[in-house]
């Protein structure tokens, strides 16, 4: 790994660092609101480096669900990373060894992936890990500050901060749904299913984490059958 490439990555990743800081602040505050300690919130962010996955993980922990549910939730919610890792592996080429791949894998988040891939064929593991490192610093420090603030601030502010993560999800989903009609349909399907699991007698016995998994799988499968993507789009 060339240090020059690594530093170029650190620099390029600064905007991601700032964005991650503000969002993970919300995660930290929410974790405290769910009864998790500052240290545990930091540990989650440092070991996972995901947004949606960590958030769903919080729900599983808070409801005291079975371990298998945690595995299922993470598998479904983070399944997109498998696709991104495949694409990243192709881009890095056959000359990059297993050691470097195992390090790069840890940092493969949506934004780090997007920034890395935007470098085209010049992408190196050094650059990728540089972007990932600065992004992770933002994510972990934001979590720490949010968790500390969350334990100091009054309940009303803490609750409002917890909504931040939902705000981020909405900011990601709405523009996509606006651009692509099949995505809009998948979103509507997922919402309808989510409401059924929340309010239908019988169905509302299913835990929140599992309900998210089932809603996601059903909505995404239906759209995959109805609107299969073109070859280039999926990559």
């Amino acid at each position, binding site marked *: 790994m060339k240090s020059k490439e690594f530093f170029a990555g650190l620099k390029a990743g600064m905007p991601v660092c700032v964005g991650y800081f503000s969002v993970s602040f919300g995660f930290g505050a929410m974790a405290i609101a769910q009864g998790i300690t500052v240290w545990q919130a930091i540990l989650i962010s440092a*070991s996972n480096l995901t947004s949606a996955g960590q958030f769903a993980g919080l729900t599983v922990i808070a409801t005291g669900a079975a371990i298998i549910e945690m595995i299922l939730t993470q598998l479904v919610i983070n399944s997109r990373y498998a696709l991104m890792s495949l694409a990243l592996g192709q881009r890095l080429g056959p000359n990059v060894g297993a050691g470097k791949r195992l390090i790069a894998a840890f940092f493969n988040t949506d934004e780090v992936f997007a920034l890395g891939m935007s470098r085209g064929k010049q992408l190196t593991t050094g650059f990728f890990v540089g972007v990932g490192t600065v992004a992770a610093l933002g994510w972990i420090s934001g979590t720490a500050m949010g968790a500390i603030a969350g334990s100091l601030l009054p309940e009303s502010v803490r609750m409002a901060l917890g*909504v931040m993560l939902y705000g981020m999800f*909405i900011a990601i989903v709405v523009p996509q749904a606006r651009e692509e009609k099949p995505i809009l349909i998948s979103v509507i399907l997922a919402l309808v299913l989510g409401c059924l699991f929340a309010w239908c007698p019988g169905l509302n016995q299913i835990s929140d984490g599992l309900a998210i998994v089932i809603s996601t799988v059903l909505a995404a499968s239906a759209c995959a059958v109805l609107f299969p993507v073109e070859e280039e789009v999926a990559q």
Partner: protein
Amino acid sequence: MKIYLYILVMAVTTYLIRALPLTLFKKPIQNRFLKSFLHYVPAACLAAMTFPAILSATENWISGAIGLAVAVLLALCKKSLIVVAVASCAAVFLTEFIIH
């Protein structure tokens, strides 16, 4: 102590999802259904996690609904991620403040 087991399982699962395809499979996915499925997972998943959970995230469901409405409106106006998230928070805080 069980929380550390949860965190460990969560971290290992997430890491394996990222690491296995990057190290083991050198060929791209050919199956069209699987490709399409993975294309639709992110948005569907975020939607399923946000609603109706946002309504029970606050003391009063009305503030959650207002936070949701503010976020959707701003996102439709193509505001940045941070603006949407912060405005949604502020809307929830103000609504809770008015209600009480």
